[in-house]
Each structure stands twice: as C-alpha cells, then as structure tokens.
C-alpha cells in the first residue's frame, strides 16, 4: 500500500492583482454539475439544504455552499467546506443527474473596489450594480475561455473555470486588475 496521494491545485503559489483588485486562487472545494427537471427541484433543495434557484442569473448560498443557476435544468453546486455532494445526491431518488466536477473546475477570487473593472477587461457581461447584483451568477466568457461568474459581495467575485484554463484566466484577471486600478 502506497502513501495517500497528495493533492496539487492548478494555481498553487500564484498571486497577483493590484491595490484596487486582488486576484487570488480559491481553496479547494467540492463541486457538482446538477441536472434535473422542475419536479425534482423541491426534493433536491431539501437534500442540499438550499433552495435551488429557478431564475436566470441567480444563485443561492448557505454557509459556504452555493447553488448557481446555469441553465433551466442545470446548476453548479459548490461546497467550500468540501462536503461530499455526490453522496448527498446519491440519496435523492427523484430523477436527476449529478456528476462530480470538483477537480474539473478551479476558482479565482477577485476582490476590491476595482474588481468589476478587472473582470470587465475581458468579460462582455454587464456587471452594473442593478443588473448583476450580489448573488448574481452566470456562465459567460473571459477573453478566449468560458467561465462561471458569481458575485459574492459588493466588491467580491468568484471566477470558476476549467483547471487547464486557470493560468490563462489568472493572467488575464491580473492584467485587468492592474489596468482597472489605474
């Protein structure tokens, strides 16, 4: 029996950003790509302990667990405390699909007064206060890659992307942060 394999995050050791917008790799989290029809939403919400959002561009968050509306039958669940989301899903008999994407994605946190400007350097989404308020979430693009953007606070955003794209995402956000702070 070999030693337990150690986990190595894709952005380990990276740091960047500016006085106006800090750019930092998020810690590991468990993630689920959850798919279900409308009739299963109640049961699944109960199981995961949060109300799965049903409106476009919205999310629900309860103590480090987030459910982001990505499409009419699609949510991205993120648990920053590492809960076994697959196990929770396995306990739900209502028709759904749960796929573990904990390692597929990684996240970058952008925070500070110029956070929105940093993201707007490469993201065509309107990040205006009323149109993308705290709690808003959307799958969109950042430069040449796809991301999922979650506004976690007035000046705080979580950028989720696939792991191999994360150095690119980090680089472009760091450059955007530099420019937004000027």
């Amino acid at each position: 029996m070999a030693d337990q394999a150690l986990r190595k995050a894709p952005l380990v050791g990276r740091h960047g950003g500016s006085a106006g917008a800090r750019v930092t790799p998020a810690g590991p989290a468990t993630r689920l790509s959850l798919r279900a029809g409308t009739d299963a939403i109640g049961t699944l919400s109960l199981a995961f302990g949060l109300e799965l959002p049903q409106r476009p561009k919205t999310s629900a968050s309860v103590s480090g667990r987030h459910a982001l509306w990505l499409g009419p039958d699609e949510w991205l669940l993120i648990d920053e405390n590492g809960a076994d989301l697959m196990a929770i899903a396995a306990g739900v008999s209502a028709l759904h699909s749960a796929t573990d994407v904990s390692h597929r994605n990684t996240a970058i946190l952008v925070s500070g007064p110029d956070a929105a400007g940093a993201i707007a350097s490469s993201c065509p989404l309107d990040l205006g206060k009323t149109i993308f308020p705290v709690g808003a979430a959307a799958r969109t693009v950042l430069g040449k890659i796809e991301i999922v953007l979650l506004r976690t606070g007035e000046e705080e955003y979580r950028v989720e992307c696939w792991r191999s794209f994360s150095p690119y995402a980090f680089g472009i956000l760091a450059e955007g942060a530099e420019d937004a702070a000027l």
Partner: protein
Amino acid sequence: MLLIYCPYCEEERSELEFRHGGDAHIARPTNMADITDEEFQDFFFLRDNPKGLIFERWRHIHGCGRFFNAARDTVSDKFVMSYKAGEPKPDLSGATPATEKPLTEKVGETHEATEGTAK
C-alpha cells in the same frame, strides 16, 4: 458584434456567448432509415440562404447552454424575435424588420436614401 436575446436567460447577451446553428425548423425525419435519396438531400444538403427574414438556430453555448430559434433579417441583422427550441415557427408575414423604422419625428421627415449606385 450582435446582441442576442436568449429566451431562456430572458435577456440580451453578447454574441461572444453564442454559437450559430444553421437553419431552424428542419426536423429530422422519424423514419430516418427509410427516407428516399431526394428526401435526404432536402433534409441534409439543401438550404435557401434568402435575403431578408430567416429563421435560424442559435446555442447560448457559453451561457445557459440551450439551443433556441431566432428570426433575423439578413440584410439589417436585426432580430425580429427569438423563441425556445420546440416552439412552433411564428407567423411573421405581417412583420417588417425594424430597419426602416424612423426613430423620431425629426428623422421621419428626412429624405430618400442615396447609397452608391455601383453595380
């Protein structure tokens, strides 16, 4: 760069989030294996490419991920409407694309257009 209304996200989003999907309302035959060569040709190969109003598919691939249909004027690029996949083709025979709509009273008074006459 187009601004496209996604009927699932219920808002206009940048074209960067979308992928074009060809003509809309071409249903795959349910008896696929049995159709004639001519029927297959019409289904798979032949498209009209009209000037003016067309019905086309889009996928909000970097958004909600859904396929949907849109009616667009190929001359002005104006979208007349977009609607969810599976919904029937709307009757737009009465609709003119918004191209020629004057924006204000003042503009309505002005003269005929004069583009270059090169042929």
